């Protein structure tokens, strides 16, 4: 059997690595059969962890979906500085995905992956949809019927654009790319964004199977 301190350490490790609430079932599932603690032992270990945090900046709380380690409210003034001082940044993978959707819409995830040459993490599509910058406007009529993504009105508002025709073109990119002049003449590079966003999106939905927004 495992001693109480080890059980507690494993629970803390899992809760902080997960970064989201974990149910007691998920916590128990961390252990293989031989070492699995009884539910009372699990609860005792959680209680011990809670006590350990008394003098710390953390607290262990039970919320709807399970147990969660969170920073105490009284540390908000300092932690908030973290975000004031520097807004979080999006990854390059997310920005490129968004850019390809903006300039090449409507487009499927597989098509984006083909251009980028790597798979796209689901979290990226989720973040972009949660931010309401992209949405599914239809499905391509091929096996699997993959979703077609397009940008939204919120996207235009955020970037202060009247329409997609206001998106800057590659030709407007400042001089840094003198080394790659071939980019401007390569075939298949859309210099211009699709001209009329709304009609475009509508056309996509119409010619393919339609889906209500969001």
């Amino acid at each position, binding site marked *: 059997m495992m001693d109480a301190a080890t059980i507690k350490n494993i629970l803390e*490790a899992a809760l902080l*690595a997960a970064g989201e609430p974990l149910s007691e079932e998920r916590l128990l599932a961390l252990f293989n059969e031989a070492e699995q603690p009884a539910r009372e032992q699990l609860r005792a270990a959680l209680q011990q962890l809670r006590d350990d945090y008394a003098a710390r900046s953390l607290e262990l709380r039970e919320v709807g979906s399970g147990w969660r380690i*969170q920073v105490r409210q009284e540390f908000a003034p300092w932690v*908030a500085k973290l*975000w004031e001082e520097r807004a979080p940044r999006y990854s390059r993978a997310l*920005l490129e995905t968004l*850019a390809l959707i903006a300039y090449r819409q409507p487009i499927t995830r597989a098509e984006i992956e083909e251009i*980028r040459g790597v798979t796209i993490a689901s979290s990226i599509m989720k973040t972009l949809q949660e931010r309401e910058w992209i949405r599914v406007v239809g499905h391509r009529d091929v096996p699997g019927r993959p979703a077609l993504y397009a940008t939204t009105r919120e996207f235009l508002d955020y970037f*202060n654009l009247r329409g997609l025709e206001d998106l800057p073109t590659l030709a407007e990119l400042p001089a840094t790319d003198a080394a790659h002049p071939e980019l401007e003449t390569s075939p298949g590079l859309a210099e211009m964004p699709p001209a009329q966003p709304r009609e475009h999106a509508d056309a996509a939905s119409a010619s393919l199977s339609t889906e209500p927004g969001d």
Partner: protein
Amino acid sequence: MTDTAITVESPIAKVKGEALTELPRDLYIPPDALEIFLETFEGPLDLLLYLIKRENLDILDIPIARVTRQYLEYIDLMRELRLELAAEYLLMAAMLAEIKSRMLLPRPVEAGEEQDPRAELVRRLLEYERFKQAAERLDALPQLGRDVFQALAEARFKSVTRPLPRVTLDELLRAFNDALARAAMYTHHHVQRDPLSVRERMSQILSRIRADRFTEFQALFPREEGRCGVVVTFLALLELIKESLIELVQRDLYGVIHVRSASANTG
């Protein structure tokens, strides 16, 4: 290729627990295991290092004839199994053959300095080995998400709204440019390199030449493929000659060389 079974000095692979030391001629191709084994080599240098290590040879004093023979056995084995053989393997075979022949010649002694024909090969092997090892050590370091994990606590405060990341139009344009630039760069590369396999080139040459007519040797080298294309074509021609599938004819000394299919003569 040879008519006899290919014998390799020590087990090539274990199949169902039994050491496999030779590949029977009328092979029902068993060897998934063998194939995996052969595919684990990262290139000719890696294969050579393996051979040297297996025989406990001194890398600074490689018995070149022995190593060359073993190397060629593996190459044959790979062909036997119809594994895609990268051009680099054949270039190395040519290099080994050249070193071997130079070892037989009396060494030119210039200004008292003796140049070992193996020196360049040894240098490359040692160099590659260092980085092969460095890669293993790199992989053994604790990796984020595999061995160690970023700790994250929830910090959602009543009074504070966490700002969302900001993106400018300029960043978006740059991201678009980057994605396309990379795509273009790699597509380009792809077209240039990947199709240059010797086997494929052999078929192409065979389909171009005929038995009843001579084709000019030089016409077989596509200009647009650059040096790598020339090498692949040349290796393919050598292979075709070795397998008696084509013949070369030169009427006059220094004259134009012609190629024709050997099938007319052999039936």
